Structures are given as structure tokens and as C-alpha cells.
């Protein structure tokens, strides 16, 4: 088991992918996962104040705990409609 991580819109462009996965060990919460990808993709820094998190299709806070099998997504403020 692992954590599935999704990126959308400009974050997918930066990451060069819409989806990856991660061993949950060492990642206690949503924020720790975001920090990992900010190290991988320094341009994520620019999104620190605006990025939205979701956990299993629900909006999540940085401190929301994560566990094996979860699906996390990172995305910019939405602009549908």
C-alpha cells in the first residue's frame, strides 16, 4: 500500500505528471507530503499560500493525517463554471 498523489492544472504542469505515488512512511500529514514535492519541484514554493489540499476527495487542512491507501490531491484555487 502507498499514498496516491494527484496534481491538477498548473501544479500538474510543474510536476510534469498528474499522478504519482509515495510510501506513506515518514509522511504523517498532508503538509509533509506537500513539503516533499516542494523539494522535488521548487516552483511549488510559489503556491504555498494558495494551494488547496484534498484527502480522499474532501478538502483537507495541512495538518490532516494521512495513511496508506489515501488519495491526496494538490491544486490551485478552482476556476470552473
Amino acid at each position, binding site marked *: 500500500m502507498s499514498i496516491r498523489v494527484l496534481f491538477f492544472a498548473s501544479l500538474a504542469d510543474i510536476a510534469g505528471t498528474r499522478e504519482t505515488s509515495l510510501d506513506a512512511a515518514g509522511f504523517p500529514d498532508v503538509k509533509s507530503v506537500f513539503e516533499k514535492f516542494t523539494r522535488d519541484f521548487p516552483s511549488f514554493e510559489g503556491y504555498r499560500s494558495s494551494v488547496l489540499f*484534498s484527502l480522499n476527495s474532501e478538502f483537507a487542512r495541512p495538518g490532516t493525517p494521512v495513511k496508506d491507501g489515501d488519495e491526496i490531491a494538490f491544486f490551485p484555487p478552482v476556476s470552473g463554471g
Partner: protein
Amino acid sequence: MYLLTRECIDTKSIADKLKKPEDGAFVLFEGIVRNNSEGKSVRFLEYDGYESMALKKLEELGDRARRQFEIRDVAIVHRLGHMEIGECSVVIAISSAHRGPAFDACRFIIDTLKEIVPIWKKEFYEDGEVWIEGPK
């Protein structure tokens, strides 16, 4: 009826399915791809979506609207992918006995959709393309 689609949205068929003999009012909102955005000429758009979450949020939005306003039924259809100028990106349709709650619910849904449903618009101009981030 809640739907994400990559085809042209067929508003008439949504309307026909929604209406029932006890309805006295039908209110519809269509978001249309404009040929301009903040002074720039737009060639076409692309919408990206986190589909499973977006569909869940559309359903939640419709359920909230039905609890909050005296309406009978709701349809929300959002298109994803490539869209030409004049095409329809979103349709929200409300049927109800009376018009007041139908207008209120329709507006509530489109306003809230633009805040919480994980869908993103990319505008393509003559000289480039930009992801739009946040409602405008």
C-alpha cells in the same frame, strides 16, 4: 442529474428531463465561452477537472440547494476538455413550483460551484496560454 462530460452540453434535453407537471418555474444558467477575458482576445478554452471529487461536489451542491431552497429538482452539468467560443461550459437548471427559490438556488449553485468544485480553466490567446486560478 449531475454530470461531467467532454461533449457539447444538450441544454434542451436536460430541461426536458427535469420538468414535471407540478413545476411552475424553470430557471437556467449557462456559462458560455467568451471571446475575451480582461481585455485579451481568447481563441478557445480548456477545462481540467479532478473528476471524482468534482462530481461528488456537484452532488453535494445540489443536495444543499434542495435543502436550503424550496425547489423540486436540480441538474448540474459541467463540460471538460477543449471548448470553442460560444460553447457552453456549464449548465445549471432548476425546476420548482415558484420562481423565487429557483432563482436563489440557481445563483447559489453557480456562485458556490466557482468556489469549491475542483475544475480549472485554461485560456488560450494568440500569444500564449494561461491557467486561471481562482474565480473571476
